């Protein structure tokens, strides 16, 4: 189940079925779960897409399910479906980082739009995450000395200053510098900084 899809979690079979039909007619892949427990039991960290959670359910409620997801470090975007009067709960969930909420009875095109945008966001995140993985891999190629030099380069210091601080010759610094650029696959300090942005070195 590595492909991105919308996970619909609702204890009402009719709603599940209807939503499945709706998404099917819009060509959006989806999987349905009769309860939060069933969903969480099957969940693996590599799942992509989004979760459509009914707030009011038998057993574990949507909110509880959301809390468990976040506690596991799963950043799957979550869209809540709320009944009449559950809006304050949904707002609270939004503040905790839920993606959006749709009030029942919902406008189906709105719901589809929200699901699509959530899927898009997730895909974007997925892309960023795979890019970061590549940069991390390159970083592992650097020696300890090269890492030191790189950090100073990222701080925008000149070779001379770096040589003074590390108590090495200007030439050595230049040699390190060219090797770093080579290993990281960049051509300038600016490009290096851009690549490393968002990665906790």
């Amino acid at each position: 189940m590595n492909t991105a899809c919308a996970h619909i979690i609702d204890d009402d079979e009719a709603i599940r079925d209807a939503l499945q039909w709706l998404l099917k007619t819009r060509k959006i892949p989806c999987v349905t779960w009769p309860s939060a427990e069933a969903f969480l039991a099957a969940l693996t960290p590599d799942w992509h897409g989004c979760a459509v959670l009914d707030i009011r359910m038998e057993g574990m409620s949507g909110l509880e399910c959301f809390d468990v997801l976040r506690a596991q470090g799963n950043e799957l975007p979550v869209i809540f479906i709320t009944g009449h009067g559950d809006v304050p709960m949904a707002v609270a969930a939004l503040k905790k980082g839920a993606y959006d909420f749709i009030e029942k009875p919902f406008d189906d095109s709105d719901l589809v739009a929200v699901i699509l945008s959530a899927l898009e966001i997730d895909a974007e995140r997925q892309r960023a995450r795979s890019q970061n993985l590549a940069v991390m891999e390159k970083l592992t190629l650097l020696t300890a000395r090269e890492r030191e030099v790189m950090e100073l380069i990222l701080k925008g210091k000149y070779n001379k200053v770096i040589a003074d601080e590390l108590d090495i010759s200007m030439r050595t610094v230049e040699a390190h510098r060219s090797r770093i650029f080579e290993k990281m696959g960049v051509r300038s300090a600016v490009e290096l900084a851009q690549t490393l942005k968002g990665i906790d070195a």
Partner: protein
Amino acid sequence: MSLPYRIARLTWLPLVVFLLLIVALLWLTLIHDKETQRKTLISDALWMGQSLHFQFERNAAQLAQIAPELVTSDISPQTDARLRQILRAETSLIRITWLDAEGNTLGTVPSRPAAAHAQIDPDLIQFARNVTRPVYGPVYRAAQGGHQFKVYVPAFTDSGLLGISVGVYSLEALLSRDLPWWFTQRYRVSIVDSSGNEIAARSHAAPLSDTLTHSMAFEPPGRGLQLHIVAYREDVRWIPILLISSIVGLAAILLWSFWMLRRQLVRRVDAEQALRGETLFRKAMEDSLLTGLRARDLDGRITYANPAFCNMVGYSPEELIGMDPPMPYWHPDHIESLQKTHDMILSGHGSRAGIEVRFMRRNGEPFDALIFEAPLIDANGHHTGWMGSIMDITERKRIRELARQQEERLHATARLITMGEMASTLAHELNQPLAAINTYNSASLNLLSAEQTSRDELHEIHTKIARQTYRAAAIIHRVHDFVRRSEPKWERVQLNELIREALELMRADAHKRQIEIKSRLSNALPQINADPIMLEQLIINLVRNAMEASAQQPRTRRIVSVTTALQPPHIILSVADRGHGIPPESAKRLFEPFFSTKQEGMGMGLNICRSIAELHHGRLTFEPHPEGGTIFILTLPVEQESVPQ
């Protein structure tokens, strides 16, 4: 020391004085008695001395008279007779001897041996001659025993001494013969010589008293002789003994009665003290009681009021006691009903469960009191009045009222919450199929706008839509079922009865709000088919609305009239108030659900009322009261042809 004992001790003083007086009296009586006896003794002794003296004088005179005959001639028979006369047995003169002038013995009677002559003392003869009167000689012991003395009596003629006659007295004879019997009975008489020896005595066998004695000179014969008189022990003198013993007896009775009196007094004082203690205790109890107590006589006049009651009403006991109804602490608005209650109690029909009344303190503050009346029965079992205990229940009532209001509010809130929950559940439940239908619908629209439309898929979706509509219908049906559970229970009921019950329920509330409920119920109403609980609820609702509409009105307008009338084929029930009336803009919406002019109202009251009326095939309408206010009119058919089962 306590007072009564001091009193008891003080009373000893007169007692002691009294006893002393008695003793003094006794003593004085004894002294006086003794003195009297002594006086008697002395006078008796003097009398006896005198009597002896006379005896001697007479004897001497007789001797002097007879002497010439004896001396001058032989003794003639006359002389002899006279001698014998003198020497008669009962005198103490035992012998007579006569002598001539020279002192020679001429004769003696009774004749005696000559030896007797020698005892004649010539000196004494001489002496008698010289003094020319009788001379007594000394006492001597006679030869034949006993003591004797002589008297020498000279007899003279014109020429001189003629002769001397000598009389011999025997002391023993003197004592035995010359003393009268009563004297010797009473006294012991003895003769003592000058040296103090008793030489003769006349005595009885009785022991002698040594207290009453008297001695006097025995003269003649003189020569130091003494007559000694001793009173015999007195015979029992009953009168003084009786007197004294009666005095002692009386004193003893007096003492006894005094002692009894004292004991009685002590007991009485003790009893009084106990009584006082008891009274004080009871008074303290009454005073510290928080319940007011008041007693009334059979006419209803107050005869007693305890401090709690006085504090309650603000009048002093002096002001209250003797008061006639109407009492000043009766609330002026309730005087009639209070008078009625009062009369009821006096006629003995008071309730044992207590009567709730409204009183007013002196400062005008009204208060509610709970009165328990009981007949006052005195110690003899007579019914003398009425005893009432009064409790100020204003605070209690206020709290009760507060609790009631709170409870009502709670109920209202609970009802609201229940309704809210029901509505919320209903909304959620209905939302589910609606949302599903909506979504299916969108999906089918999507399918329709797609290039290739699958009829099967469309069919499937629409089947599902239909299923969801059934589901929604089922939910609606369930709600209806729930509502149907409160179906009416039909009974034959009398509307008037229901009204009375409802008004009874409302009475306390009306009393609190000072609203007068007037009911004019027609006697001609037939029974109708109705659900009594629903109908009663309807009546309560209408009356409560009327009361709430009256609440802000002045007292005179706080009147709710409940009227029933028969107008075939209908029964008309009208509930009229003189309240603020209904503004036209509210009038249109009055029966709408959730419309209320009241702050806490749910807006269901009149709606439910109308539903109930319609359920009974009746109508609920309203019209303005001609004098201001509103009249709600319930019209019910007398005979309901078909009653829903």
